[in-house]
């Protein structure tokens, strides 16, 4: 299978050529010129990129939504119940929910900071959607493949806490404020171990692009074997980053009604909820990419399928942990983040450096 970009560039060229020929047929001089301009390289590039992004985003979102379905079904089994039942095997539950939240009224709290309130949620969602772009499905199916893709992804990730904090503050509600503060503190506390784990991977592979990291793992060994401590740390920190039980304190519904998103309604809330799963999808994708060899696998099915299968398996463990534990307190999360996960990540980094220096790989 050839590259998505190449395929779509060919398609775009054909499409724009078709448009240009239609314009040419009109025998109007300025339209023919316009048709010629359409066939120039920058326009073709622009249009094909737009198409790539649209296709990629829709595919990734669909798989993100599949995560919600997966969680509903698997969690149901863990709890000895059936999970969602809407439509065939419950596949239509997400769409039913989506239609429901879209039809809801948009409510802004009276004393809130309107502009920030509206802005924060979109900043949060935008950061989530941008993250989609950073994670390739395979070395052929991706949006960007810059050399610093890992750094770009992490930088976008770090944008989340700001929007959460702003959203929590601008809602003018005590619950959202506490939720926002908690979210910010927790995300920052867990981001550093997360980053250190990524750094160790980078040290091992010597590459900052996902394609390079996966290629290295394909040649040598899946990194979960030498960097098992790092993988564990990353996994725990990833659960915390995606605000899932046992680390779902920012929206612990038992004490803070819905955390920082309490005042959000309608489709904003719906997308925020979906965004939690998108982030979980991205984090399990990252885990797959960094430690499980990404799309590497025997070639009897597509590389993308390998990648997705591994991602779903990683997310299964997320669900399993959620089914098994209760949520822990904020201070305990922070202590864990700073006192346990950080040293573990540092040790992992040292192991990676030692392995590299010793020339094992």
């Amino acid at each position: 299978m050839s590259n998505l970009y190449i395929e779509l560039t060919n398609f775009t060229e054909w499409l724009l050529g078709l448009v240009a020929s239609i314009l040419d047929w009109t025998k109007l001089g300025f339209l023919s010129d316009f048709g010629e301009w359409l066939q120039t390289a920058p326009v073709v590039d622009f249009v094909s990129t737009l198409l790539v992004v649209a296709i990629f985003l829709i595919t990734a979102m669909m798989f993100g939504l599949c995560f919600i379905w997966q969680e509903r079904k698997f969690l149901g089994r863990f709890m000895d119940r059936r999970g969602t039942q809407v439509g065939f095997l419950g596949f239509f539950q997400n769409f039913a929910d989506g239609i429901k939240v879209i039809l809801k009224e948009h409510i802004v709290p009276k004393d809130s900071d309107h502009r920030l309130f509206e802005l924060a949620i979109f900043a949060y969602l935008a950061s989530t959607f941008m993250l989609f772009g950073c994670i390739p499905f395979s070395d052929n199916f991706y949006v960007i493949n810059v050399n610093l893709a890992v750094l770009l992804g992490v930088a976008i990730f770090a944008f989340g806490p700001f929007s959460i904090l702003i959203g929590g503050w601008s809602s003018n509600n005590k619950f959202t404020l506490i939720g926002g503060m908690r979210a910010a503190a927790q995300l920052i506390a867990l981001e550093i171990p997360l980053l250190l784990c990524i750094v160790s991977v980078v040290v091992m592979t010597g590459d900052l692009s996902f394609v390079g990291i996966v290629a290295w793992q394909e040649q040598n060994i899946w990194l979960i074997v030498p960097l098992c401590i790092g993988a564990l740390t990353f996994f725990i920190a990833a659960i915390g980053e995606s605000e899932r039980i046992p680390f779902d304190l920012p929206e612990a519904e038992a004490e803070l009604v819905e955390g920082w998103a309490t005042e959000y309604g309608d489709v904003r809330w719906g997308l925020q909820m979906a965004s939690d799963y998108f982030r979980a999808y991205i984090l399990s994708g990252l885990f797959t990419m960094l430690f499980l060899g990404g799309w590497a696998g025997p070639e009897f099915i597509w590389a993308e399928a390998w990648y997705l299968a591994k991602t779903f398996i990683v997310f299964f463990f997320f669900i399993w942990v959620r089914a098994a534990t209760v949520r822990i307190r904020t201070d305990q999360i922070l202590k864990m983040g700073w006192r346990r996960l950080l040293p573990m990540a540092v040790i992992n980094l040292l192991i990676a450096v030692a392995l590299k220096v010793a020339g094992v790989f």
Partner: protein
Amino acid sequence: MSSDEMWINMGPQHPFNHGLWNLRVKLKGETITQAEPIIGYLHRGWEKMVENRTYSQIVPLADRLCYGSSLSWNHLYCLTAEKLYGIEAPDRAKYIRVAVLELQRITSHLTWLMAVGTDLGSYTIMTWSIRERELFLDLLCKLSGARMTYNYCRIGGVRNDYPENYERDVLRVLDEFEKRLRDLESLMDENEPFLMRTVGISKMDGKTAMNLGLTGPIMRASGVDMDLRKLDPYEVYADMKFEVCTHTDGDVYARYRVRMDEMRESMKIVRQALSETPAGPIRVKVPRCPPKGNVVCHVEDPRGESLMYMVSDGSEKPYRLKVRSPNFVNLSASPPMLVGFKISDVPAIMGVMDMCIGETDR
């Protein structure tokens, strides 16, 4: 109030409070410096209402005091009325009552465990304990015809005898439940996050607990061996062989532990009561109007000491019926339990209290 403190209303509509009540907490950061429970949102005027009902009509109303342990309220009302009438239920009825009351205690504790599960964020605990509770609900449904509000005790006995093969069914359920209880326990006891949330939280020593009027599992978790089934035996509890479950830590974990152990003891009592049930009548006919007088009666509810004080003026309706709900007092003692802990501990502390607003507000 300094500028770094704030009051938070947790309630009356809040995911953590099971029922309709309000917990106002003053926070400094995330630490609680002051707490004030506010109740009355579900006040139905039960005590006034029963003054306009005949004695036999109050029996199903007593169920409605608490949906979680309706049978123990029902039984307490019947026991109090029997004392007022100066009669005693037949022996068989007493044994049936004890067996059913203990089944109800297990049901109530499982409902409580469900609430604890949701409060602490583990929905597995919730669904599993609901599933186990279903076994007992089916048993009680088979016996009394209803799943929650049984209306089973009668003044002077019980409504009906055991259905066919009931003893066999109960023993089967108990055997099955014993196995499942072990699984259920490992969800909490072997679960480090659960221990992190519960151990050392809201410690209370026995003397303080006694002064605050706490009763029931919370009191026993503080190391006070107080159980009215032993101290002031009613029905045939004096003949039953069981231990009072206590714990000395006095924290949330101890309170959880006491209830789990109590379920095991309850199973013991059920087995004994079933095997020793004598033959005989199950109900005596009682007169319509009791003699004049007043009577007090207290029993060990799943939540603690519940007491009824009944005054009769010789008519067919009670003159005054006062209900002492264990939760009412336990809730009034919650501020000292909460102060100094984090807002995240509120669900843990209040969750193990087994809140039931129906009986608190009456």
